[in-house]
């Protein structure tokens, strides 16, 4: 588990059950994911995160998508409906609640489709019982989580607390910083999650509004290329389509009977799901170019973050640099699998590690603290919650305060 993987000359193997170069009914050419990203000409587009989700799904060879409105993903979910009407997605409908939607997604995945859905905040929590079920059933469904508040009183503001709840579901959890990440992670996420030795669901998370509702420049491959479709038979479980002989899948029912057998079965099953998540590393590393990005990690002060907290940190680092304070940066791309080794290595020289987060729990700081030596080096913060923005100046102040430096009065910085 968790061994470092050699990056050089590695290439992810995507399904080739449909001949590469063949065209689908929309005239798009099935293309290897590596070629889509690294060979095809990319064109810059200025678009919102919601439009980016649409652009990704247009070339993702998705079988089924089930939708339910909740801000800030409603627009994206409706745009996928347009793709369905145009013929780019085979099956699409509105479910009756997020709990039902995730069940409908599961039914489609059990039946052998590539499945995509989106949700946010209360929707994620309403759906929660389904996520470990997806993982335990080894369904490589992708849910795009456009994070928003889950607290009462009702909030639609950006907040990443819901990701905390996803961490032990057995899903892959990736966190996009930008609209470009979002596009890349959606497409690459399908390919990694569907590898037979992985074959678990994936949550591609982004920070609501900051990513979904702002415009950004995104490089897109040509629209007439598309991912090779999902091959349901590259699967650790039988597809529920009666195309393979029905075997007795369990000697005994999964509950009751011999409790000794039951315990052993469930324990090993849970371990296998965890191991499958870890096995995704070797496919993810070449596609995402590592589970983390590093900038100047030889420095004594480091910021480690994920999502848009990374963008804010970049600006904070620029401001600090202007004052002669040198700070390095680690961007975490995959929260599950968690890049333990990479983080340990990248923080080796750091004396102070700051973890800015958009949630009240500070879950990322906890993860890091739990996994590096001398964890008193980790400063849990700054964190904001409830939809507050995290101006770069706040990060600057917090770092300086913690280091015992003088902090200028608010409003005079930068």
């Amino acid at each position, binding site marked *: 588990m968790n061994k470092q993987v050699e990056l050089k000359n590695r290439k992810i193997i995507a399904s080739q059950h449909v001949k590469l170069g063949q065209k689908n009914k929309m005239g798009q050419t099935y293309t290897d994911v590596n070629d889509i990203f690294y060979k095809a000409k990319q064109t810059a587009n200025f678009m919102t995160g919601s439009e980016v989700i649409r652009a990704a799904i247009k070339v993702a060879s998705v*079988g089924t998508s089930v939708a339910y409105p909740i801000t800030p993903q409603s627009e994206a979910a409706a745009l996928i409906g347009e793709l369905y009407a145009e013929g780019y997605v085979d099956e699409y409908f509105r479910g009756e609640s997020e709990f039902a939607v995730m069940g409908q*997604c599961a*039914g489609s995945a059990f*039946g052998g489709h590539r499945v995509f859905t989106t949700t946010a905040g209360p929707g994620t929590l309403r759906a929660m019982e389904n996520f470990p*079920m997806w993982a335990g059933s080894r369904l490589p469904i992708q849910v795009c989580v456009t994070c928003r508040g889950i607290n009462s009183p009702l909030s639609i503001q950006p907040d990443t607390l819901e990701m905390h709840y996803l961490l032990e579901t057995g899903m892959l959890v990736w966190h996009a910083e930008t609209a470009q990440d979002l596009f890349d992670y959606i497409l690459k996420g399908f390919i990694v999650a569907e590898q037979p030795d992985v074959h678990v669901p994936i949550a591609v998370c982004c920070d609501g509004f900051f990513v979904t509702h702002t415009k950004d420049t995104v490089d897109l491959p040509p629209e007439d290329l598309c991912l090779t479709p999902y091959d349901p038979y590259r699967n650790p479980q039988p597809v529920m389509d009666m195309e393979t*002989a029905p075997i007795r899948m369990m*000697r005994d029912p999964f509950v009751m009977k011999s409790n000794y057998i039951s315990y052993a079965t469930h324990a090993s099953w849970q371990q296998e799901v965890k191991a499958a998540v870890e096995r995704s590393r070797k496919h993810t590393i070449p596609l995402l170019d590592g589970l983390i990005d590093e900038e100047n990690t030889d420095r004594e002060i480091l910021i480690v973050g994920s999502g848009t907290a990374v963008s804010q940190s970049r600006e904070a680092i620029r401001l600090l640099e202007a004052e002669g304070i040198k700070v390095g940066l680690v961007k975490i791309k995959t929260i599950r699998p968690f890049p333990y080794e990479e983080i340990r290595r990248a923080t080796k020289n750091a004396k102070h590690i700051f973890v800015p987060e958009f949630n009240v729990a500070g879950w990322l700081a906890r993860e890091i603290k739990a996994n590096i030596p001398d964890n008193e080096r980790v400063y849990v913060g700054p964190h904001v919650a409830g939809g507050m923005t995290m101006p770069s100046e706040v990060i600057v102040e917090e770092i300086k305060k913690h280091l015992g430096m003088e902090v200028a009065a608010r409003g005079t910085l930068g």
Partner: protein
Amino acid sequence: MSKEKIVLCDDLADVMPPEYHELVENATYGDQDRGWKDIGSSKELIEQHSLCAGCPESIAFRYILASLPAPEDTVFVGSTGCTSLVFPHVAVHNIHSLFGNQNAIASGLKRTLKSRFPGVEKDVVVLAGDGATVDIGLDMTMQSWFRQEKFTTICFDNELYANTGGQESGLMQKGFVAKMAPKGKNFEKVRLAEIAREAGCAYVAVLTVSKPNRVEQVIKNAVLVAREIGPTFVQLYTPCILEIGKQSMEGLDEMKDSEQIGGRFVQKEYITDEAQKLLDSIKEETKIRKKAAKEAKKLVNA
């Protein structure tokens, strides 16, 4: 699935369990006229069950599995409850995911199978308890009917939550004293059949499992109507003998009593005109086919 897919690999045949050999050699996959009468002379699609001895759910399973029009292309969706303990022993693909979400799973599954196999009828059949169908899952049960999802929902109505030890359920009779209804249930048994009719089911049937021929007919009707027209619903009384204090051999009498005139489970059906027309035409076709087969047999014998 063509029947040829259920074959034994010669090299591994000696390590396959005998019941699998029997399944390959003597099950009724692909037999157009399969039905409850095959029980005893062919290999059943249920190997064994882990229900209480004498539980009527077990005989209900056997009749249903014997009556499916095309088990070789049928996928079951179950739910949590006593029924979920049986599915691991059933030789038809089946899904257990969560408690109460069975009709949501079936909606996604049916649409996907339709999309993946445009030329083949893949039947989806939900089989769940009354708690799953009516209480925790009512929203998803009804919404699938509103959306006109083309699959069959079968409810094993034992009028309580059996698997968790006999608590009150929506389909329990009024006044029944149960766990969580210590003073007796204070509202009427939910009229699920009428709800199903109003929610858009093209075929609805309520009965007990005391008579296999009736169960066979109803299951065939429900699956065939779901293929062509829209959602169908079958509510079967499968009393929980354990929780109502009956002996193993008393289940049948309990069912027979409940289907007497004035009883809760007098057989009833609601069939839309469209569904009736379809069923009539299927009946006619079957008659002609069987007659032709008989003639052909006569000719051969002559």
